[in-house]
């Protein structure tokens, strides 16, 4: 009886409980904290890019091309005489922006789709989830490549393509708890009180699935950043001279016999970010899905 009244109470305590569980999961696995700290540093670097950059990331200065590291050029210069460090910190902005926005869109759209499918059930549910399964069967990189190839490379199209590949897992993870929660007494009570469907979903179901979605977000952000870098490397990223990590690696790789070191700094940058996000996700993965099935990527 007390459990029922507890559920009948407002939603925030439930959300708080879930967030406390999340915190506990963080604490059981110290690598999560290391990952979070590292990621925070990268985010700070991206935000502070205009302050940290020592040169214009785009302006060419052919006289200074292919210089080694020095006091003026911390990481040296590329084939156009542009400062690699400055390009790197501005590249962080773009990587995080494209990855972050696309995963945010995927989180919102995906959870909405999953909640609607799970909440209303029936044929709608079957139809929606079948579409999701079809999208899920495409590897992120291949689907992203197809979409960007057809639509043309731009920040907006990259975000759209990456979001599209990441929607199905969020829909799946939002659907399962919705199906079980909607049968509970307190949802029945909400219906009896005449609450609208959107209100029930937003206030009484969403808090239950929110922590899982957040954890999935950190895992998929890693994938999104990797896919963006891969597409840039293939030549489908934001057009030069805008600095992107994948694009910088591509520039270094095109002359690998002469200027191989150009691709090293951005390679390490991508590796650090993806590793940090994976470390966050690693400790929390049991929280979402003990069997590792949620994880896929490009």
């Amino acid at each position, binding site marked *: 009886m007390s459990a029922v009244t507890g559920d009948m109470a407002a939603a925030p305590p439930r959300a708080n409980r879930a967030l406390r569980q999340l915190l506990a999961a963080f604490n059981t696995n110290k690598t999560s904290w290391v990952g979070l700290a590292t990621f925070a540093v990268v985010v700070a670097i991206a935000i502070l890019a205009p302050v940290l950059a020592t040169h214009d990331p785009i302006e060419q200065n052919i006289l200074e091309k292919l210089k080694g590291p020095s006091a003026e050029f911390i990481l040296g210069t590329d084939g156009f005489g542009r400062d690699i460090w400055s390009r790197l910190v501005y590249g962080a902005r773009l990587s995080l922006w494209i990855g972050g926005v696309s995963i945010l869109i995927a989180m919102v759209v995906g959870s909405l789709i999953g909640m609607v499918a799970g909440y209303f059930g029936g044929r709608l549910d079957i139809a929606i989830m079948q579409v999701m399964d079809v999208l899920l069967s495409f*590897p992120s*990189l291949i689907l992203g490549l*197809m979409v960007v*190839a057809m639509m043309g490379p731009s920040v907006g199209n990259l975000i759209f393509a990456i979001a599209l590949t990441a929607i199905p897992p969020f829909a799946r993870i939002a659907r399962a708890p919705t199906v079980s929660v909607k049968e509970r007494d307190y949802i029945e009570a909400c219906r009896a009180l005449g609450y609208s469907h959107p209100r029930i979903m937003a206030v009484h179901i969403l808090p239950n699935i929110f922590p899982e979605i957040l954890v999935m977000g950190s895992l998929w952000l890693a994938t999104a950043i990797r896919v963006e870098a891969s597409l840039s*490397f293939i030549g489908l990223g934001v057009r030069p001279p805008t600095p992107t990590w994948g694009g910088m690696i591509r520039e270094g790789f095109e002359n690998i016999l002469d200027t191989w070191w150009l691709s090293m700094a951005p*390679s390490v940058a991508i590796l650090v970010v993806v590793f940090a996000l*994976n*470390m966050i996700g690693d400790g929390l993965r049991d929280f979402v899905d003990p069997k590792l099935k949620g994880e*896929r990527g490009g």
Partner: protein
Amino acid sequence: MLQYLIKRLLYAVPTLLAVLTVVFFVARVLPGDPAQVMLGEQAGAEAIQALRVRLGLDRPLVEQYVDFMQGALSGDWGTSLVTGRSVLGEVLNVIPFTIELTLASILLGALIGVPLGAWSALHRNSLVDYATRIGSLFGLSFPAFVMAIMLLLAFAIQLDWFPVISSGGGGSVSERLLHLALPAVNLGIIMAAYITRVTRSSMLEVLGEDYVRTARAKGVPHRAVVWQHCLRNALIPVVTVVGLYLGILIGNSVLTEIVFNRPGLGKLIVGALTQRDYTMLQGLMVVYTFIIVVVNLLTDLTYGFIDPRVKYQ
């Protein structure tokens, strides 16, 4: 088994149709005009219109859809705008290289990943376990092209052990293996990272099962418990997950083929991209669709083969 096989095959048909529809959607319905993308921003309106007519983009969408599906299902996947050769022919030329690479990396991944994961699980929370977990997490954090560039720099350029351009090799087996080695190691390491993690967690789960405790209580030797009771059961989820990760592998093989300049589907698709060969791109999307559906089907079948319970569901 036969009934299960037929049921699975029939299930694959609607999936195939649905996935092909997604491809059509991507190719035709999304905003962005392929003719414009192909000709570039400076192209005149007349040139764009002419290309639209040539590609059939000016016809009603329904008509295009029916045409597309008929072509895709009958194996007529179009001809390249650049070379004039059929997409199917081009694909058949290079697909052995991609299959060879994929199989080699799965094999390598399993050879490293399964023992490492099982060992790690058996020594849970030891130093080795900890190192394995961090190491595998690090391994799967590598974008495939980043690791490929590092391998290329170290072993082909600095040490000169392997060819810089993996053309696929000549006729002899040893030559072929030499060309296969670095690309396969690249994908194999990433695959091994995934397989290690799944094997470890699956093995830990099995080690906690009642029947394992019973076997131990009966006095079954440790070795037999590990090999007969644990590993075989622990491998069931590993197979499914390998199937799931084949998608990642297909994506990563594109990047690997670019870095090592190795012939294959990935290089074909990137070549079509740089030459703005729209019909080739669309044809290759259809090819990938078929590959993905077939891979999913094979995973399902393997699953049923390893775990007899699946068949009766």
